[in-house]
């Protein structure tokens, strides 16, 4: 997939309604190529719904979104070829070995046979699972599973990676290691769109959006966001202040 001009992700007044419930409320944002873009917010804020729309898994109700230049509503097939997706819910096949999972995802991503050994070796190395090729996936510990899932999502070398709370339920050390991988990926030119509810992870992002009740209530680099809330403010302060401000506005 050749890189296209413009932003990696372009969202314009995106709305998603489930019956009367508004899950995503007029979200507008841009993500530049090579950026690590964070989505921060409590559970139920609409982070996952937005990501699923961007991955072509859900149709938007209103507004538009482009991923890698493709319209998610009308060109989902092309969007899916340009992205890797990994969700909070662990989603590899437990009864397949590490190698068989890698082989399967190489197949469904359409990776040509001659480059598969190279790509799979890279994914294995990245996940730190060398020597575990024949281990049943169900026997892997949580952190390893997450890294294998990431490895499976990048076999086709997607320009954009969507990670939906990839580190939830993983211990702090494994989380730190996972972020090292995200950095390595961004350095090699991949755009990473990641959602989290861990404050310290928000600090690792180049830019981030605070999401609350379906809306983006703050958007900027971590430094910008903290500076706007006075000297010495932490990410936590920013988060709480923004939510309180939002609640006061809506009252």
């Amino acid at each position, binding site marked *: 997939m050749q890189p296209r001009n413009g932003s990696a992700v372009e969202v314009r007044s995106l709305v998603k309604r489930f019956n009367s419930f508004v899950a995503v409320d007029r979200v507008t944002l841009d993500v530049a190529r090579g950026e690590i873009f964070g989505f921060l917010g409590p559970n139920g804020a609409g982070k996952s719904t937005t990501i699923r729309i961007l*991955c*072509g*898994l859900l*149709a938007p109700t209103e507004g538009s979104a482009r991923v890698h230049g493709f319209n998610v509503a009308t060109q989902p*097939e092309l969007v*899916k*070829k340009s*992205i890797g*997706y*990994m*969700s909070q*819910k*662990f*989603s*590899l*096949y*437990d*009864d*397949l070995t590490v190698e*068989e999972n890698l*082989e*399967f*995802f*190489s*197949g*469904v*991503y*359409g990776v*040509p046979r001659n480059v598969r050994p190279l790509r799979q070796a890279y994914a294995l190395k990245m996940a730190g699972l060398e020597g575990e090729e024949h281990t049943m996936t169900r026997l892997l510990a949580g952190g390893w599973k997450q890294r294998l899932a990431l490895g499976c999502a990048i076999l086709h070398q997607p320009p954009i990676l*969507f990670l939906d709370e990839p580190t939830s339920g993983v211990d702090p050390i494994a989380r730190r290691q996972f972020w090292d991988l995200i950095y390595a990926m961004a350095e090699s030119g991949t755009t990473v769109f990641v959602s989290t509810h861990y404050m310290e992870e928000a600090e690792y992002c180049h830019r981030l959006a605070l999401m609350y009740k379906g809306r983006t209530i703050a958007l900027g680099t971590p430094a910008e966001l903290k500076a706007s809330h006075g000297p010495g403010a932490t990410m936590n302060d920013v988060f709480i202040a923004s939510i309180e401000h939002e609640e006061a506005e809506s009252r």
Partner: protein
Amino acid sequence: MSFRRYSAIFRKEGLHILRDWRSLAMALGVPILLLILFGYALTLDVDRIPTVIYDQDGSPQSREVVERFRGSRFFSIVERQGDYREIIRRIDNSTALVGVVIPRDFARKVAGNEVAEVQLLFDGSDSNTASIAAGYAEALVLAYSSELRERQVIRRGAGKMPPPIDARVRVVYNNELKSRNFIVPGLIAVILMIIAALLTSLTIAREWENGTMEQLLSTPVRPTELLLGKLSAYFVLGMADMAIALALGVSVFGVPMRGSLLLLIFASALYLFGALCWGILLSTVTRSQLLAFQVALISSFLPAFLLSGFIFAIPDMPFVIQQFTRIVPARYFVALLKGIFLKGVGVSVLWADILFLFVYAVLVFALASRTMRQKMA
């Protein structure tokens, strides 16, 4: 449609099947179990019916009647009783199904040109066997009676009796009238239906329940590729079952296979494909393994067993149910199986059944693939 993606799905499904040894054992063991159960235990043939005889007369004539029963292969005399209550006791505890009572004045009435009577008692709690046994017993008594009359006519010197009409019976197919010969081929329809619909009913629902469907949806894989990849893997398993059933049926149960093997394989493939699509359709609609399994069990096993003409003849059914059997694919496949196995007939006779299976397979496939596209979009 990408062959690369299709073959990835196919191989993955194959691995699931091989890894899940319980399902695999069920898939390969159930046909063998059913064949043994039905092939050996379920025989609808009525012979050697346990019979009790109470001969009150003890005359040469009454002993002749007893000898007739003894000589018939349909009856097996378990006891010659000297007591009426003993017959009832035996029927009560099911050690006898038929009682024959020859009254004290039997020989006198036969000689005196009176109507002699033989009482026949049947255990009607097994109504099927009872009515068949009653038919045999009546025929046996009638034959003896007409023979007696002929003897008397000759003894009186009145020349020969006008010859009675003799019904010449020739059974065209399955001339030994062995029920096993039609049960075993018919069973193939039931086996394929159970295995195909039950196993595939789990396959899509499992992906939803494990969250792997979400992952698949984010990849470029298309609904049709997913459907065909899964179908192909279970198709291989189903055809293996077909081969097992065919081999066992012919070698162990000695069922004649008169028709074309190629036609049999083709018809089985069509039927299997339709059944697999049905299971996948249920799995796609319900998204729940438990629910899909239950619906598949009821909607596949029961019609294939009860409404296919496998054991219960369709012409004997009430009119409304007869009409209903027209939409049961197993009915057409059972007709094909009987035609190919027992009659050895070919496409020129069976084309309508083949056409129905083809239409059914195409319809259910179209429905399954449409539903999957909707659910996956």
